């Protein structure tokens, strides 16, 4: 059967257009929905990352403060170390009273001291960086490493009853653990009060260090 349809073309086209518009708006709606969902998701992620960032920033702040305190403490430590080195460098590591007591113990009544000098001088191996110097401190039984690479030269000058007494004094000093490298400076006879006495000068070093090669 041949069919006829009175539905006009303008209406059919209008329906097609309307359907297209509807599909278009549905598509737009879906896109907007997807964007909204994505935006919500992305915002959520951004919020999480921001929170993590804030936490990390706080941790960093705390760490920075800690670092500053650490640096400050380290600076103080370095300063104190420097001071310590400075103090070590100026410290004599030598008990003068002990030296005097030893000298008094070694010298008998036939020797009168007129002069006693204690001088510090650089160690002979100071130029060699490889040398290690161990210095025995008089304050303690334990030996300590010191940066002050000096040794103490003791100059004794006085009068002895005779030259033999000078020699004995040299011997006594050599025998003592306190001193070594006893070198006579000079020795001469001079009259004092109508009597001939022997004037002498001795040099020795305080034996409070060991030089290790």
């Amino acid at each position, binding site marked *: *059967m041949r*069919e*006829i349809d*009175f539905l006009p073309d303008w209406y059919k086209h209008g329906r097609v257009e309307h359907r297209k518009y509807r599909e278009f708006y549905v598509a737009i709606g879906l896109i907007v929905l997807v964007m909204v969902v994505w935006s919500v998701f992305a915002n959520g992620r951004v919020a999480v990352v921001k929170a993590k960032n804030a936490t990390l920033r706080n941790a960093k702040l705390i760490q920075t403060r800690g670092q500053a305190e650490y640096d400050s403490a380290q600076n103080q430590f370095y300063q104190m170390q420097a001071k310590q080195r400075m103090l070590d460098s100026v410290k004599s590591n030598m008990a003068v009273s002990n030296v005097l007591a030893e000298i008094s113990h070694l010298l008998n009544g036939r020797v009168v001291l007129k002069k006693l000098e204690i001088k510090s001088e650089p160690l002979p191996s100071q130029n060699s960086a490889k040398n290690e110097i161990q210095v025995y401190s008089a304050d303690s039984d334990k030996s300590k490493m010191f940066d002050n690479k000096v040794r103490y030269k003791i100059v004794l000058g006085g009068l002895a009853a005779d030259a033999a007494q000078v020699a004995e004094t040299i011997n006594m000093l050599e025998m003592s653990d306190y001193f070594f490298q006893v070198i006579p400076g000079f020795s001469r006879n001079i009259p004092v009060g109508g009597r001939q006495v022997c004037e002498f000068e001795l040099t020795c070093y305080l034996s409070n260090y060991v030089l290790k090669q």
Partner: protein
Amino acid sequence: MFEIKNIFEFLKTNTSPIGLDISCNSVKMLQLRSQADKMAVVAADEIQLDAEVCDDEQSARDATVAAIKEILAKGRFQKRDVVSCLPGSKLIIKSLRLDAFEDQEIEKALNSGTIDRIGLNADTHEIRFFSAGSIKQGEEVKNEIILFAIEKEALRKHIEMLEEAGLTPVAIDTVPCALFRSLQRSLRRVADQEKANVFVEVGSSYTTMLIGKAGEIIFAKQIDIASEQINKQVASRLGIGIDDAIHLRSKLRSETESQEIEPATRQIVIDSMYSVIDELAREISLCFRYYSVTFRGQRPSHVVFAGGETYEQTLINALKRHLGIDIEVTEPLRGFDLSGVDFPADKRAMLCEWAVATGLCLKGMDIAERAVEHERN
């Protein structure tokens, strides 16, 4: 050969758009469904309109919209797509004879002044046509054209009314085409296809007369004599209102209630009906004559009747006597599964007033199937 696709054949369903048959005194809505070659009625509903609204176009329109909305509100119809038919009062049917045979030639001939000569205008009228067949006019062979037309403004108003009622028109048909489509279903035999078949639908305002052959309409005419004229004649003769005349006629149809009517009154009603029926029979006879002369065919031996007035046995008997041929009353929903709907018990056997709505639904199913085929291709 067994095919796998046959396994799923039973799952295929095709629900038609709503078939909307709007007449002066009623609104009928029908929806069909086909499943695995079985047809079923999904929903069917009818609302009678007041007789007073027929005379005023705006009132009739408002009442129709309200009736459609009321039916839709019941929720029985599945979709809002609709195939409706143009109102008979607005539809113009003309038969033309042209020398042109091809559709393009016919259109060219129509636009070159032919439609102006029959009082139509291509700018103001929506025009459709199809060829009824070749005829001999003297020594010449002419092409008989059946032309359908409606004013564009009336068509626009009809579409607006459907949209206002909440429906989406997918096609707009004519009563003759819908009727032919519906009634042709019962003519599947080869013998039926070879001979001329006459269909008459007595509607509320118009009687539609169709002659078809080989599955095509070769003659269509709307006769403005129908139940409305019968009711008016009865009301006029008895001096009563139209509604009273309708009520009186319905009582006359019932064997028990007809006994309550006085014999004199009954006789007046029957006489009144006869005067209109005579006129209708004469018009139908003229159509037979036109067919016989134009198509050189034999006078049809029987007529298939449809429409609400077919329940009026008085009318059927009178027409049978006047026309001198057999009259068969159609059953447009015969073979359909009606278990899903609740038709009135007294009309359930025939349901001949649903012929137009059935034809509209079938057109909608064809459109849907074509759309599916188009998408597949």
